């Protein structure tokens, strides 16, 4: 059975007297331990889908089943409990956290709120989480704004895995990082997925990164699914108009090198 099944999801926004469907009748599923990527141009609906799946906003229509139950029907304690299994990492952890909070405080919150560890046990758990994401435990007393961007994104991942989720929504989670740091973060995510069987809903504008880390990809255009399939197959030979446009627009080092080499021969 699917871990997450989204059926006929629709979300409209009003703009003046017009109604615009940001997400228009979108259906997909994610299996346990699988990475499904969402890609598309600005305004294609990929971040709206992420927010709907997280129930940060409510859909106008459609159904979301998560771990076998109707996720949109949950409320109160049942919703809070299920939310521990569905975590998120955003592009900018500095915006997601209180910048003055310490690393320890950021990791203490989910352990406390979800009743995962007793007060006495929490420092040890925090140290273990930091180690799990490749950080040293000495970082715990530091303020979020004092550490580097890459370290901060590792803390965001540590916070996400603290509640032992089955699914993490990654919304451009590696997009703002320097390339040298980005590779390390992507490897960490793949490593966690392999070991803990975590599934990812991986939202990115970068087809190269999607092809590198995702099992499947959905290409969105104006709120609708334009193309859907194995990530490498779709990106290597897109069939939809938007897929072809996205692939054609991506900068390519090898293509540039070949162009320069042939220009040099003239």
């Amino acid at each position, binding site marked *: 059975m699917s871990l997450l099944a989204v059926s006929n999801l629709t979300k409209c926004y009003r703009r003046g007297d017009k109604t615009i469907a940001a997400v228009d009748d979108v259906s997909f599923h994610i*299996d346990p*331990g*699988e*990475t499904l990527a969402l890609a598309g*141009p*600005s305004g294609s609906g990929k971040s709206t889908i992420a927010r709907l799946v997280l129930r940060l906003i409510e859909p106008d229509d459609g159904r979301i089943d998560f771990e076998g139950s109707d996720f949109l029907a949950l409320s109160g304690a049942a919703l809070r409990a299920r939310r521990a299994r569905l975590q998120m990492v955003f592009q900018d952890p500095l915006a997601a956290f209180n910048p003055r909070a310490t690393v320890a405080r950021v990791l203490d919150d989910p352990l406390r709120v979800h009743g995962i560890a007793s007060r006495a046990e929490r420092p040890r758990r925090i140290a273990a989480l930091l180690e799990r994401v490749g950080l040293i435990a000495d970082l715990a007393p530091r303020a979020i704004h004092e550490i580097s*961007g890459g370290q901060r994104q590792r803390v965001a991942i540590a916070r996400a895995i603290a509640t032992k989720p089955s699914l993490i929504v990654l919304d451009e989670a590696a997009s703002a990082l*320097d*390339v*040298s740091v*980005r*590779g390390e973060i*992507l*490897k960490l995510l*793949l490593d966690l997925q*392999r070991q803990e069987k975590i599934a990812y809903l991986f939202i990115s*504008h*970068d*087809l*190269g*990164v999607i*092809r*590198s*880390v*995702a*099992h499947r990809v959905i290409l969105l255009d104006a709120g609708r699914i334009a193309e859907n399939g194995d990530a*490498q197959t779709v*990106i*290597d030979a897109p069939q939809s108009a938007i897929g072809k*446009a*996205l*692939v*054609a*627009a*991506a*900068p*390519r*080092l*090898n293509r*540039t*090198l070949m162009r*320069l*080499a042939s220009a*040099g021969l003239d």
Partner: protein
Amino acid sequence: MTTLASIRDLTVTYRRDSNEVAALRSVSLDIANGERLAIIGESGSGKSTLALAIAGLLPGSSRIGGRIDWFLPSSPPSGAKAPPSVLPDISPSRGEIGSSPAGPLSASLAMGESGDKGVISPLEGEMSGRTEGGLVRREVRKSSLKQSYIPRLGRDIGFVFQDPSASLDPVMTIGKQIAEVARTHLGLTWSQSYARAKSLIERVRLPDPDSALRAFPHQLSGGQKQRVAIAAAIAAGPKLLIADEATSALDTIVQAEIVALIRRLVTEDGMTLLFISHDIALAAELAERIAVFRHGQLVELGMTAQIVGAPAQHYTRALLDAHIGLDTRPLLDRAGLHA
């Protein structure tokens, strides 16, 4: 090929809390006339500081040292002293260069004390050199930078920032924002300036130029706003166009369109392009030469084919290896999982 600007031992330090942080360390670099030069590097490499230093946009609290020799059509021959009569109107007390006919200035401006203590980095806090209604204002700063000529932002240098929403005035029409650059620097009347604005809007391919003239920034998409920012940057016909991560906030398709636009405009107008980017693959598509920066230093400079195909420095190699392209071997080990 002739040189447009010759940068020697350029050093910039920012004050952060009570510490001095070196953002650029003794950078020497020649920018050739008419070339497309990319400056690439990761965060903290100094690439944006270099762009701001060249444009005279560094915050007042920064310390600048070194020398920039300019070979602009409006600048005097190298080494020549400009007659005092054509010196621009500088008020020593306020350190402002007015918009009055700023002729060539050949002098090692001994700049005085900085009054502004608060600014830390060029990206946060206020800029000392702001373009306000097309006027370039410079505040006096602690500086030992020697320049053969102080180029005027807007007239000699066009600057395109990453976020067009921040660089455009939200309550001024698109037409006026472009027209006032032309009016300020070219001495045109308002009606001539609007005519020029309209032709610029056509050149940057905004749909429906007549209504675009009257539109406000919030009525445009991110890509359209960046087209407006580019039109304003080139409105006075600058010799040098600096694009500082000008496409980084745009989606891939719009980014490719803006890069194509910049390439076309630079070629048509014979401008020199300084393209600042964190993306080596994107820079390689546009630039003829690439300068790689790290920790405030110039690591490697060469033709694009050499930098990308046969880098001499280990760091350049590492940057290329870290690039994840459409033909890079995937990180994901697909054996096992997939049904």
